[in-house]
């Protein structure tokens, strides 16, 4: 059962009958969602400061960059490909944002520069994968290094500082008491969710990832579908970079290092199959929030920081094992 398997008749709005509940539990992000609720309860009991509006909001702000990028990478993974270049891509977009911001100020020009840079890099990924017929893991691994190299060449290794306040709005400002990064993340989620469920491209992404041969024999534009997914990653990285620069107030040459693996972790933990074709737009958001909750909760409960990596790793293994077991139990879906 996948997001599209559940396309019309199932959804969050299903009446809470047992049948509806059963179907909901079969949704790809269900285990992560259940686990998230359990964790929230456990941390609330263990640490007084955990379940406060301020703390919960700060968790969401912290995972906004991760969540936004994971939303787009999720589409790439659903289409049966992968993108591990987003760490360096975020760095490069941040350099573009920072450079334009210090030159012109304002918000729109730096944002546009970041998005344009991202789309360009994403399009290169997509073209090499589709026209070049090179496996995406190789292409994006190459880009991971190449883009980091470009950052160093462009900046000469120096930081970009003194980002003007009006550019930092997207990272720092609040609207009706909620930080803008959180707003942006949820707005983008709503858009991607609608597109993923109801648009032809969204459907093609699942089809290409679910059975590429059948999709090809059905005449789908496999290359265009995948190219768009890679370009979408670039656009979302550009937006995320503007938030990132806003929050940091400066751009370091190592910005975004290691982010690519966290993004994939968020997607997989959330319940999208790394093999493609199964998953949902909600999965990366839940995955990102889950990561944020664990990191935050561990600190509040007083677990030493050295445990972070071990816990995250265990979480990923747990997620993929759950997915494999569930698919075997549900059966039918080979």
């Amino acid at each position: 059962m996948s997001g599209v398997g559940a396309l019309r008749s199932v959804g969050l709005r299903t009446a809470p009958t047992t049948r509806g509940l059963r179907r909901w539990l079969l949704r790809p992000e269900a285990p992560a969602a259940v686990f998230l609720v359990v964790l929230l309860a456990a941390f609330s009991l263990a640490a007084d400061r955990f379940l406060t509006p301020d703390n919960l909001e700060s968790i969401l702000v912290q995972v906004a960059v991760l969540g936004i990028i994971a939303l787009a990478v999720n589409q790439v993974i659903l289409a049966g490909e992968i993108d591990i270049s987003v760490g360096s891509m975020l760095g490069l977009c941040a350099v573009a944002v920072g450079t334009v911001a210090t030159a012109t100020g304002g918000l729109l020009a730096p944002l546009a520069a970041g998005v344009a840079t991202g789309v360009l890099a994403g399009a290169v990924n997509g073209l090499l994968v589709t026209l070049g017929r090179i496996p995406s893991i190789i292409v994006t691994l190459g880009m991971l290094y190449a883009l980091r190299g470009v950052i160093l060449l462009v900046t000469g290794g120096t930081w970009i500082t003194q980002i003007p306040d009006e550019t930092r709005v997207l990272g720092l400002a609040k609207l009706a008491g909620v930080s803008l990064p959180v707003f942006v993340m949820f707005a983008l989620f709503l858009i991607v969710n609608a597109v993923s469920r109801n648009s032809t491209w969204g459907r093609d992404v699942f089809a290409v990832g679910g059975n590429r041969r059948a999709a090809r024999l059905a005449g789908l534009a496999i290359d265009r579908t995948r190219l768009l997914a890679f370009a979408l990653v670039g656009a979302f990285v550009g937006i995320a970079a503007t938030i990132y620069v806003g929050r940091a107030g400066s751009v370091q040459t190592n910005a975004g290092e290691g982010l690519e693996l966290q993004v994939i972790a968020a997607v997989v933990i959330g319940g999208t199959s790394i093999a493609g074709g199964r998953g949902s737009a909600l999965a990366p958001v839940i995955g990102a929030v889950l990561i944020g909750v664990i990191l935050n909760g561990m600190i509040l409960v007083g677990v030493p920081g050295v445990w972070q990596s071990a816990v995250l790793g265990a979480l990923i293994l747990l997620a993929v094992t759950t997915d494999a077991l569930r698919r075997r139990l549900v059966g039918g879906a080979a």
Partner: protein
Amino acid sequence: MSAIEASAQSRVEHRAAAAVHPPIFRLAGVTKRFGGVTAVEAVDFDLRRGEVHAQVGENGAGKSTLVKLVGGLYVPDEGRVEVGGEVVQFSSPRDSEAAGIAMIPQELDLFLELSAAENLFVGRRRPRRPWGALDWRQMEARAREQLGALGVEFDVEAPVERLSMANRQIMLIAKALMGDAAAVVMDEPTSSLTEREAARLFRIIDELTARGVGVVYISHRLGEVFMVADRITVLRDGQHVRTAPASELDSEEVVRLMVGRSLDELFSRGGHEAGDVALEVRGLTRTGEFEDIDLTVRHGEVVGIAGLIGAGRTELAQTIFGVRAAERGEVLVDGEPVELDSPAAAMEAGIGYVPEERQSQGLVLPFTIAANISLSILGRLSRLGFVASQRERETADGFAEQLAIRGARVSEPVSRLSGGNQQKVVLAKSLAGGPQVLLLDEPTRGVDVGAKSEIYRLIDRLASEGRAIVLISSELEEVLSMADRVLVMREGRVSAELSREEATQERVIAAATGVAVGEDEGAEGAAPAASVDTER
């Protein structure tokens, strides 16, 4: 051919000697079922020292299942496998190899990047130098020696991917003999060999049998079978039909035994008036797959394409549909040339294709039934890039009703349906685009009898509505009862074109295998078979 004729002569001499020894292995009353399907039932088969025992039968007669039972890939549900008079239980190919049975599969299992010498020593103790390093020189020397014993010589240091198919096959035989195989099982060994290479293979088979090695020889090519075989076993629908010395049979008799039953017709189409030419294929070629194919199908006509697996039928259909790139030739629909570069272009031109593998090529299994049906026409069902779900559901419901898709609602995953109903979904998907020309590749493979006759009725209806239909099928009865005209393909070429009246099982098999049967004149390949027959 004279060398082979001579060898057939010499074979007669050691056949007498072979009879006195106990069989190398024996299958006694073996039955193998897969789910509800019985692949072979109560079949007896044995192999004696120094003989060539051929297995013949139509596609699906159970030959490869038998081979896998001998090779340790399957365990029989009933009956026993005996080696040297003792009952054995093979649980893996390794067991069968240890018992002295070597398999030469149709698809050769080789490590293409490794050299011939390395391949020969895979899974075997490799010679080493005193300090533990591999002794390459000795490995290569032994490889050369082994090949020399078979009378062949080639570069054993070069990667196997540079060797011809014939040399790769000989390598596997050499490998089998290194393990002191008492029996060698060859599955369609000549399917990718030239005539000269085949002659060399027959000479090697001769040397093997002279040493007392037994050979199981599986081939569709009856001419060859009569050249090499001492005994022939005919299988049909998983049943043992007859085992007899080759000298007591002729190819006409063997074909009759292979076909067997009379036509029990699930469905028979009445006569139809065909309209104008809908699909025209001219000189379509993909070297190595099919060559110079001409094909004309009229509106309202069903043209069957018969042939053996590997004759190039699927490749032809996929090329017409733009999946594979054509080297030469053109395709016209209603007189208009079709761009042969993508399935999308073919569909645009009014061609629909139902692929032979339902699950791997036809369906997106995690999708709902509705999403599968609308896969190709989503653009038409959407506005501004968003799917009009109401229209999608109506379309899907319409097809589900027309094609009697039963077992689940269209909003449920397609994986919940039975094989026959899944196949109807694949058909619906191809029909959704409203094609005038339909290429059906094994449309009833693996579906139950009920769904089968429903699919036949559907094909009949589609034809009477004026669609041009190409029906590729390995089931002879299906082709004969459904098609207005039958094209037979053999080794990438059209070997016969038969009208509904001319098309009989015997004629189609003759054209598909290259063996002349009965009073049919003209099928090529008849001469060698006949000459061997008269010799005996």
